[in-house]
């Protein structure tokens, strides 16, 4: 019940933050002729199918991971830890597997830009710092937690211990090497699938018809934002989840029962609180990004008045 309450709170805050972040949107309506509108309508249907397949496969993998976790308690929650990352990877692979959207129209005058396209040229450079920064944060924290971890009874590094005189205290599960090494591998794979999905978006040919170039930019920007927010969201949820667990466990291990009563070792106790707070904030940020990726993936290509959406800023 408590877990459900936490999840509902996180989702509610994520939705509010998403709506707030989405207010300053980069899209504005543009007017196109009837022929262009027909081409965009077909592209809109293909985009919807891709979004449904991407989200459907990701949710399916997430549910399967949770079921596997219930069926395999001997893995100490490892399947549950890897489920969000695997779900994001599968979602991104499905996204990349779809044929790139090509806006085709009849013209006797074909145009092409002389600017090379790369996976990192779909948006402003700072936008790429989000997935890169979150991936680095997860890896650095997994290494630090691994170094601080200690072996549990079965020899796996998934506990944390503190000594105080003749007393010692140990608590788990802690994100030591047992969880950290698979997490680092998962982060690298997730980053690679993000680059693959962005490469598929940037590698698709641009329309040869001048009138379709602005809507094509809008489609690419939406696709790139969906990919970036999905992967960054999953990585921030990871970083936050691991930090929260580390904080809870560190706080528990830092409380030692002595002859004078229970004491809290410092700075371990304070570190646990900081980790817990930072973790919850990172989970909220990650959940907001995931909600935004769903918003982008399901965004209609046409405004209510029948005009398509196009970016103010060309990617």
């Amino acid at each position, binding site marked *: 019940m408590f877990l459900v309450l936490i999840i509902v709170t996180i989702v509610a805050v994520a939705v509010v933050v998403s709506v707030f972040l989405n207010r300053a949107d980069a899209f504005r309506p543009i007017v196109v002729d009837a022929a262009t509108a027909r081409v965009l309508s077909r592209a809109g249907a293909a985009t919807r199918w891709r979004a449904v397949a991407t989200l459907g496969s990701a949710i399916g993998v997430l549910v399967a991971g949770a079921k596997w976790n219930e069926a395999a308690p001997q893995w100490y929650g490892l399947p549950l830890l890897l489920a969000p990352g695997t779900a994001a990877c599968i979602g991104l692979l499905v996204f990349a597997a779809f044929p790139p959207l090509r806006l085709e129209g009849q013209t*006797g*005058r*074909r*145009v*092409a*830009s*002389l*600017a*090379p*396209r790369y996976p990192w040229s779909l948006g402003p450079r700072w936008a790429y710092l989000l997935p890169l920064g979150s991936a680095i944060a997860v890896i650095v924290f997994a290494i630090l937690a691994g170094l601080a971890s200690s072996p549990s009874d079965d020899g796996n590094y998934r506990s944390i211990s503190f000594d105080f005189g003749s007393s010692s205290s140990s608590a788990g599960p802690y994100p030591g090497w047992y969880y950290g090494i698979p997490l680092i591998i998962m982060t690298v794979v997730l980053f690679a699938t993000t680059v693959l999905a962005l490469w598929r978006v940037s*590698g698709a*040919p*641009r329309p*040869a018809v001048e009138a379709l170039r602005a809507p094509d930019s809008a489609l690419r920007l939406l696709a790139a934002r969906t990919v970036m927010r999905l992967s960054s969201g999953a990585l921030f949820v990871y970083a936050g989840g691991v930090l929260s667990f580390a904080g809870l466990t560190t706080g528990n291990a830092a409380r030692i029962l002595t002859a004078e009563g229970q004491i809290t070792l410092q700075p371990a106790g304070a570190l646990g609180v900081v980790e817990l707070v930072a973790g919850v904030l990172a989970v909220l940020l990650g959940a907001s990004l995931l909600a935004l990726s769903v918003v982008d993936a399901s965004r209609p290509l046409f405004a209510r008045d029948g005009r398509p959406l196009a970016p103010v800023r060309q990617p």
Partner: protein
Amino acid sequence: MIVLDDDDPTPPFEQIRSQLVDHIRSGTVVGGQRLPSVRQLAADLRIAAGTVARAYSALESEGLLESSRTGTRVRPGWGVPDSVRLAARGFVASLDRETVTLDEALSAVRAQWEARVVRRPD
């Protein structure tokens, strides 16, 4: 921007080559700038990759482009001086109210150019 005109009797390879020369000379693409890959440009223009490759290799032979593992780049030193670019811009702007085609405007420039050569023989 490269434009391929299906109504133009000039072969696509030559349309690409001549427009690239214009872009390089006018400074629209500058020395050291990387050009799109053969594959990207061909896919965007909906033509065979060999057509773009032929245009690139012709410009490499002329010394305007250089290719390496990292891609095709414009060689520096081929742009016309800024004064020429400004004069060209002024000339085109002065034709705003005239109903002349590009070919007609270029013919006028060519005629003036030849007259200048006659006036100032070497």
